[in-house]
């Protein structure tokens, strides 16, 4: 069995770490090449025209995995009101029409996540003993958590560094070093080393960067290819970016703490209540709630990301302007027609507006 997976942000680091620890035997994990314009082209070519961007990108990934010889494809399936629940049905048909004889494994991300993920890992790991799997999983998670921690640190430095681009360079090196690390201790040391390097980056001592929170649909928020490195572009404009959503947070809560009754979004849902009373699928409820929370926390602005025609986010987008907690929101919709310069122009205009608003409010 050769298992191909789609990409989503830095999820591949986890997959790589698992392969590193568990090895490839009869069953093998195939990580497709990083999402590129070819991936997008393939996805666009074979998807229904009006499918959303995550559908097209993940389809591209899966086709590229098939080209590398994958015979089993894994995809997330949510039982919810978003199109995600339909991905597998549709992609299976497209992949078969292309002549690949691949079986689809669905990874349920809304119910029984823990069991379905663990049994999948067990299968791909050629039935390795559980202690070995658990230690590999721990190692993979350590890498993921470290990467997300690094990212948070990078966001702060990017906004105030004197020499633009320094933080990004350190980030690239750190990602490389972390994905090459072979032991948990090594991962930890690497992280420390790079955090120290970040501390040493010369920063603007008077810096009081504009603070912006990124909210929206999980895939475009987490995947830098899908969102055209929006966080990096904001960093270039001297904006400090904060985002609640991250893959490590998802793993931490959805795979473990949710089972203990901890709901990571409780406060956010409560904040959304007066405006949106119920879960509308995807991340729509959270987007509305986070806008309210961020306004209360005194952020300068919110940037709301969504794939074009995303149903839950359209609900959120319709409701957001009516909240009494006032904070500027820029909605950026992504599809295959979107060009980076267009996005940057809009970001520049938005940041100007935020700076102007801040000056006026402080007077």
């Amino acid at each position, binding site marked *: 069995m050769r298992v191909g997976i789609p990409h989503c942000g830095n999820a591949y680091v986890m997959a790589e770490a698992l392969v590193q620890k568990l090895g490839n035997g009869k069953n093998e994990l195939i990580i497709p090449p990083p999402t590129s314009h070819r991936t997008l082209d393939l996805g666009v070519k074979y998807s*229904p*025209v*009006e*499918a*959303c961007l995550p559908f097209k990108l993940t389809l591209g990934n899966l086709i590229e995995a098939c080209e590398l010889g994958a015979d089993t494809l894994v995809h997330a399936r949510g*039982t*919810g*009101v*978003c*199109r995600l*629940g*339909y991905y597998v*049905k*549709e992609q299976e*048909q497209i992949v078969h*029409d292309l002549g690949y004889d691949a079986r689809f494994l669905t990874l349920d991300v809304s119910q029984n996540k823990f069991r379905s993920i663990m049994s999948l890992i067990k299968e791909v790991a050629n039935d390795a003993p559980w202690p070995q799997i658990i230690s590999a999983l721990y190692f993979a998670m350590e890498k993921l958590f470290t990467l997300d921690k690094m990212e948070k640190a990078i966001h702060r430095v990017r906004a105030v560094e004197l020499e633009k681009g320094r933080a990004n360079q350190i980030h690239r090196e750190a990602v490389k070093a972390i994905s090459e690390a072979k032991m948990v201790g090594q991962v930890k040391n690497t992280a420390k080393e790079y955090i120290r390097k970040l501390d040493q980056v010369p920063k603007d001592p008077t810096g009081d960067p504009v603070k912006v929170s990124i909210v929206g649909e999980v895939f475009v928020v987490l995947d830098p290819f899908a969102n055209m490195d929006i966080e990096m572009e904001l960093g270039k404009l001297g904006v400090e970016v904060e985002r609640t959503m991250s893959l490590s947070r998802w793993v931490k809560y959805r795979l473990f703490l949710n089972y203990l009754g901890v709901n990571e979004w409780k406060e956010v849902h409560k904040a959304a209540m007066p*405006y*949106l*009373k*119920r*879960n*509308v*699928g*995807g991340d*729509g409820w959270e987007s509305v709630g986070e806008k309210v929370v961020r306004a209360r926390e005194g952020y300068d602005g919110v940037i709301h990301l969504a794939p*074009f*025609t*995303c*149903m*839950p986010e*359209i*609900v959120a*987008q*319709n*409701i957001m*302007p*009516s909240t009494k907690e006032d904070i500027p929101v820029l*909605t950026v*919709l992504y599809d295959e027609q979107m060009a980076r310069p267009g996005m940057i122009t809009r970001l520049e205009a938005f940041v100007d507006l935020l700076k102007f608003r801040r000056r006026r409010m402080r007077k």
Partner: protein
Amino acid sequence: MFKVGIPRALSYYQYLPAWEAFFEALGAETVVSPPTNKAIFTAGNSRAVAETCLPVKLFFGHVISLANKCDYMFIPAMRSLGKKAYYCSKFIGLPDMTRALVPECPPILDPEIDLNKGRRNLYSAIYDLGRHFSSDKSRIKKAAKQAEKAHLAYRKEMSDRGITPIQALDEMHRDEDKLYSEPDTSPSLSVALIGHQYVIYDDYINHRLISRLQAMGVRVFTPEMAEQEALDIAMTKLGSAPHWSFEADIIGAGEYYLEAKVDGIISVAVFGCGPDSMMIDMVRHRASEFRTPFLHLSLDEHTSEGGLVTRLEAFLDMVKRRRRVCA
């Protein structure tokens, strides 16, 4: 007597008789908005964000047109009509979106319909809704029974006589002499129209598609003209459990009419419809396996009548020619 406003949009085409029966049994009067017109279209269009799909924009227009004519607005939040089968997000967020976009709207009655959680959940939603009008539990129960009866009769009327919801509703609300004659069986071509009720039956969205086709000598079949069970059976034949509550009405209907050997399939969807973006592709795929001509019309607020007519004519010419060649 309370007046309950029912916007003539979205679920209206499916459930109006049931809703009217329910509210009438509880002693409330129902007010329905007029058929979509330019004023409704413009009003709805100006409130919602641009990416919202056309039927939902029109829904807001209908709410606006009713706003000062009723005491309550009835906007159910439809989440699910069956085990693990769901509605589109916009149906669930409809009451909350209306509250945000139409501040002049009277208090909204927004029962959450979630059959995924079981029938008990539905009963309590109905009871909570009925309590606005009556504190008598058995009266609410009776009203719900009557609503169910009205719905089944309405559904049967359409499938037995092969008429559209518009015709069925017209007959219910007008005089006997306006009764629609039985469908003319002489037309030479049969075409199945696949799409959501609020797209195929809203003449403003689809530029009078049904009557246009009939004028071109086509016998039009719509999903409602088949029995619900038949659609469900056609759906299950395809092997996978439905993900959307209305999947049988699209994919099931496509399959049903393909098997019934219609001359062509026309699918009608609005631009930006999430569920349709995937489902229509499934129907198209099946149609190509059956080698049945297939036309997909994607409509939005800019669709021009001329372009639509040209495409229909070309499609029908192709179907006719194909029939001649194959015969």
